[in-house]
C-alpha cells in the first residue's frame, strides 16, 4: 500500500513542480545577494541570511529558513488537503476502499506519504542551497551563533537534525490538512482550511494578548532550529517543538480517523 501511494506521488508532475518552486525562491535570493553584494543587516531577515555573503556553508540552512514560514507550509497544505479529497473527487476513493484498503490504514499511509514529500522537498532545498551557496559564496568553517567555530563534521549533523526538525515541523499542518481532507471532497477547500489554521497560528504567535497560548501554537517553535547552531546546542525549544508537533498530529489524526472511519462515502 505504501509503495503504491509512493508511486502515485512520484508519478505526479505536481510533486516535481513544487520541489522546483521551493528550491527556486532561495536561488533567486542568492542571485540577488551575489549580484548586489548587499546582505540583510545582522538580526534582520531570516536567520543566517546576513552571514551568507561571508560563508556559503550557511546557505542550506538559510534557504530552509526562507521557505519555512510560507512556501513550505503552502506546499504541505496542498498535498495533505489533496490526500483524501483528491481521491474522492477523482472517484478513485471508493475503488480504493473496495479493494479493500482499510480506512484507518489509508489515513496513516497518506500521512506517511505527505511526510515523504516534506522530506523530499526539504532535502532538495537543502541540496540546492548547498550547491548554490558553495558556488556563489564559497565554503568556510561555520561560526556558531554563539561565536565559536563549528567543525565540519559537527556542522553536518547539525544540518541533518535541522532537516529532520523542519520536516517534522510540517507534520502538524499536514495532519490539519489531512483532517480537512476527510471532511470535504474538494482538495482546494481542504488545503485552504489547513492554510487558515496556519495563518491563525502565526497571527496569534505575534499577538502579545495571546501570550498564554503561544507556547502551544503549532508554528511557535518553527524557528527553534537556530538553537541547533549554538554552542553548546540549546535543546530545550527543539524538544518542545518536536513535542508540539506530536501533539497536533495526535489530535488531528484522531479527528480525521473519527470522521473518516464512520463517513458515508458518496463521492
Amino acid at each position, binding site marked *: 500500500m505504501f509503495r*503504491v501511494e509512493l508511486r502515485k506521488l512520484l508519478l505526479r508532475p505536481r510533486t516535481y513542480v513544487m520541489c522546483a518552486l521551493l528550491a527556486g525562491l532561495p536561488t533567486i535570493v542568492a542571485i540577488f545577494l551575489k549580484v548586489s553584494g548587499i546582505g540583510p543587516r545582522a538580526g534582520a531577515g531570516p536567520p543566517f541570511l546576513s552571514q551568507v555573503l561571508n560563508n556559503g556553508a550557511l546557505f542550506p540552512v538559510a534557504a530552509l529558513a526562507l521557505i519555512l514560514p510560507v512556501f513550505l507550509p503552502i506546499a504541505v497544505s496542498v498535498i495533505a488537503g489533496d490526500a483524501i479529497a483528491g481521491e474522492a473527487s477523482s*472517484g478513485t476513493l*471508493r*475503488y480504493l476502499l*473496495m*479493494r*479493500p484498503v482499510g480506512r484507518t490504514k489509508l489515513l496513516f499511509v497518506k500521512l506517511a506519504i505527505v511526510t515523504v514529500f516534506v522530506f523530499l522537498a526539504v532535502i532538495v532545498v537543502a541540496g540546492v542551497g548547498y550547491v548554490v551557496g558553495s558556488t556563489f559564496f564559497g565554503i568556510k568553517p561555520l561560526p556558531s551563533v554563539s561565536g565559536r567555530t563549528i567543525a565540519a563534521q559537527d556542522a553536518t549533523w547539525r544540518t541533518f537534525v535541522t532537516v529532520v526538525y523542519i520536516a517534522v515541523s510540517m507534520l502538524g499542518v499536514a495532519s490539519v490538512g489531512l483532517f480537512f481532507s476527510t471532511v470535504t471532497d474538494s482538495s482546494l477547500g481542504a488545503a485552504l482550511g489547513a492554510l487558515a489554521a496556519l495563518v491563525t497560528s502565526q497571527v496569534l504567535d505575534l499577538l502579545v494578548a495571546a501570550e498564554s497560548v503561544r507556547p502551544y501554537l503549532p508554528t511557535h517553535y518553527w524557528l527553534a532550529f537556530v538553537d541547533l547552531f549554538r554552542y553548546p546546542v540549546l535543546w530545550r525549544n527543539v524538544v518542545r517543538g518536536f513535542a508540539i508537533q506530536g501533539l497536533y498530529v495526535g489530535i488531528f489524526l484522531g479527528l480525521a480517523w473519527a470522521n473518516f472511519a464512520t463517513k*458515508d*462515502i458518496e463521492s
Partner: protein
Amino acid sequence: MTPVIRTIGLTKRFGPVSAVDDVNLEVHQGDVFGFLGPNGSGKTTTLRMVLGLVFATSGSIELLGASVPKHVNRVLPRVGALVEGPGFYPHLSARRNLALLDATGPGGARRSRQARIGEALERVGLARVARRPFKAFSTGMQQRLGLAAALLRPHDLLVLDEPTNGLDPRGMHDIRSLLGELSAEGTTIVLSSHLLGEVETICTRAAIVHRGRLLAQDRVERLLAPTGTVRITTDDPGAALRVLGESAGSHVLERERDCVTVRLNGTTPQELNRRLVVGGVAVGELVVERPKLEDVFLRLTERGGADVPR
C-alpha cells in the same frame, strides 16, 4: 445455500428523507440480477451499503456470507465492482491506472499482473489504446475501462451500477455479450439499470425499486408471466366470435377487423385453438400475451408512488 447478497429491513435515511426504505433483497448464486428503478430511486445507495461504502441507518446486510459493514473487508476481494461510473487518475495511462489499482489491497499477484491487465483490456476492447492517458478517453471508453478494472481478477460476484451508461449501441451489445460470458463462467452478476430492455434481455432475476422501496423481486419470466389474454388473428372474426360464444371458459375483450382479443377464464390457449379449428375457423396466429417489463414497471411504480407521501 446462502445467498450471495441478502439484506433485511435495509434502511438509509438522510435527515428526514428515506433514500432506502425497508429493502429485503436476495441475490442467489448464478443469478444475473437486474436492479431496476428510475434515477434517484435508491439503487446506488443500496449498492453502496452492500459494498460497505455507506452505512445503513438500520437493517442488516450479508455479502457472500459475511456481515456488512463489520466483516466486509474479508469478502470484498471476491467482489468486482463498478459503482456510479469509473474512477481513475486522469493524467495516467489506462494500463498504469489498472496496475496501480491491482497493486492496491490484498491479492493480485505481481507476476501475473501485466498478463491480467492485458486480458482485461482485451475483453473490453481497449487493448489498442491502453497507453493513452485516461483523460483522453471518451465517456464510452472510460466506462469500458471501469469494467476492465472490475475484471482484473476472477470474482465470485460482480456489482455493476449502470454499466452501459454512455455507451453507443455497439458498446452496449459488446458489454451484454461480455456479461453473458461471465455469467456462463459462474460469476454472479448484479446489474443496476434504468434501461428495461437491458434487464429484460440479460437478467434471470430482477428487483424493482421506486422511491427507496422494493416493489417486486422475482425471476424475470415470472415478472413477465402471461397476462391471461390471447390474441387471435383470423380472416373471419365473426366465425371466431360465434365459436367462442358457444363455449365456456373465455370471454371476448375486444374485436378488431382481423383479430379478436380474449381473456382466458378457466381454459388453456391449446384448448381454445382446438375449438376454433374444429369449429371451422382458420386461425392465422394465436398469441399468448406477456407484459413487457416496462408495463410491469409502470404498473408497480404507479401503485408504489401513490402511498408514499412526498
